[in-house]
């Protein structure tokens, strides 16, 4: 009789997990802690003896007290996150409701939705810069045609408009994927619940508000948190589309950290700001994990 499998696997199960855990922790936990350490130092990247001097919390107080640019990027990031989370969720939900009934036409459209998602954000940034070119951009021409006042506007040179172009590009890039996620969520609502509503003679709108949306809540929550996490991190799109400009009108926190660290070579300060970003991330990730695991244990 062979020995019990579980006995034999006592060590193997840890051996199998070890390399992956090592990779993940060495490449995430270590740099996180190392960044935290940098944030207490004055450090110029250009010098080899990095980091140079322990200065305690000075990098943090500097950000809070002496840097309007930090507050600006914080504000831009928060505004960007709020608006993009709202718009993407709204449009993705609308699109998902339209596409969910199925049939050949709708399923065909669903598979097309995969295309924008396979595009890298950097490339989306380039595309939108092209589309909003004041001389020959397609969107510029389109908006010029429907709203006469905005013909040939230099979108990316105007602080407010540039911000909205970034918002549009981001929303455009995220709607398809979140739509697919929500279609998945809609498909998991039991048919009987919906049919019960129809039998009772409830209108389409009533069914949507009273049955569909409440049933969809867990998936919606996941979508909102996931989108918030990625909105807070936004970098590629901004870098390629406006590079933070004009001035610092579209500078997100990630972009601000990048600029301070790698353009001004001020690594200690940049690490401190980066760490300020970690805090909301931890909260959002905690909420996301709670939701995901609540589902897992209820299965």
């Amino acid at each position, binding site marked *: 009789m062979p020995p019990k499998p579980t006995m034999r696997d006592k060590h193997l*199960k840890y051996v199998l997990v070890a390399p*992956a855990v090592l990779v993940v922790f060495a490449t995430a936990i270590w740099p996180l802690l190392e960044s935290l350490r940098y944030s207490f130092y004055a450090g110029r990247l250009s010098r080899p003896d990095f980091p140079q001097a322990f200065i305690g919390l000075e990098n943090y107080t500097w950000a809070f007290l002496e840097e309007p640019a930090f507050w600006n990027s914080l504000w831009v990031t928060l505004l960007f996150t709020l608006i993009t989370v709202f718009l993407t969720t709204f449009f993705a939900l609308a699109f998902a409701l339209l596409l969910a009934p199925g049939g050949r036409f709708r399923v065909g459209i669903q598979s097309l939705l995969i295309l924008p998602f396979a595009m890298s954000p950097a490339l989306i940034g380039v595309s939108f810069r092209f589309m909003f070119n004041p001389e020959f951009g397609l969107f510029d021409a389109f908006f010029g045609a429907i709203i006469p006042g905005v013909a040939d506007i230099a979108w990316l040179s105007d602080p407010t408009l540039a911000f909205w172009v970034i918002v549009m590009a981001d929303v455009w890039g995220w709607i398809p994927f979140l739509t697919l996620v929500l279609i998945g969520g809609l498909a998991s609502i039991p048919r009987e619940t919906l049919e019960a509503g129809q039998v009772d003679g409830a209108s389409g709108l009533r069914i949507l508000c009273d049955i569909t949306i409440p049933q969809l809540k867990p998936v919606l929550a996941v979508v909102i948190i996931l989108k918030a996490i990625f909105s807070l991190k936004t970098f590629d799109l901004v870098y390629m589309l406006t590079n933070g400009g004009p001035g610092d009108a579209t500078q997100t926190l990630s972009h601000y950290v990048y600029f301070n660290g790698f353009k001004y070579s001020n690594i200690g300060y940049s690490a401190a700001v*980066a760490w300020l970003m970690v805090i909301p991330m931890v909260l959002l*990730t905690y909420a996301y994990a709670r939701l995901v695991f609540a589902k897992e244990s209820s299965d």
Partner: protein
Amino acid sequence: MALTGRQKKLIWNSIQIVLILIFTLIMLVPIAWIALAAFKQHVDVYQLKLFFTPTWENFRIVFEKPYELGEKLKNSTIVATATVLIAIPIATCAAYSFSRFELRGRTLLLVLILATQFVPAVVIVLPFFVMFRDLGLLDTLQGLVLINTAIVMPFAIWMIKGFIDGIPIDTEEAALVDGSTRMQVIRNIVLPMAAPGLVTAGIFCFIIAWNEFLFALILTNREAVTLPVGLALFKAEEGDLWNLLAAAGIIIMVPMFILALIIRKHFVQGMTMGAVR
């Protein structure tokens, strides 16, 4: 005019179709416009022309000096392929163990692995830059493979775990009773059954590594530049060279479109890591 229920339904359905078409148009027009621009001559880009004489010229120019997109294409291919070849076996071992065994701290580990996915890249890249500089890994493909392996690992573990969870455990137990070792079971039973899942996860990781931008931007400057970062080449003094940018864009996105369509069915599940089922 009173409408019957049937007529109402018909009208509502038509409105839906129109809305869907408008949405789809908005989604596809930017992609189509870039695709068109890639075949336009320099002068045609600067007029909103829908009809023009198509040319392959742009695709030739981007591969020539000074752009040499071929080098970037090679780098991107090597980095993404090596990343997948290293990450998938490591992730598969871990995923199998997470799926089949009672591990101490299993849930906590899985949550932490998931959580690393959400750490802002700008936080991580600072220490890596310093370390790579000290080790001479800046601007090398090895460095990028290391980084990308780390980036895709959480995705890969979660996705593959999901696939292995779906494989019934009975065959494995029978084989163990018959005297197979655990490694034989994994090789002969689990791997063949999980193969479609592994391919899906592999393609998924390939797309992520291919599109990765921030690390490649900061950690390379000449030798190891990848395609997305290479887009910056087409900013000239006289402005952006849009027809060349578009051609480069096509070279970046078309392979990913094909890969994405292959794994379409599992795409969403993989991205949300099992949050939606």
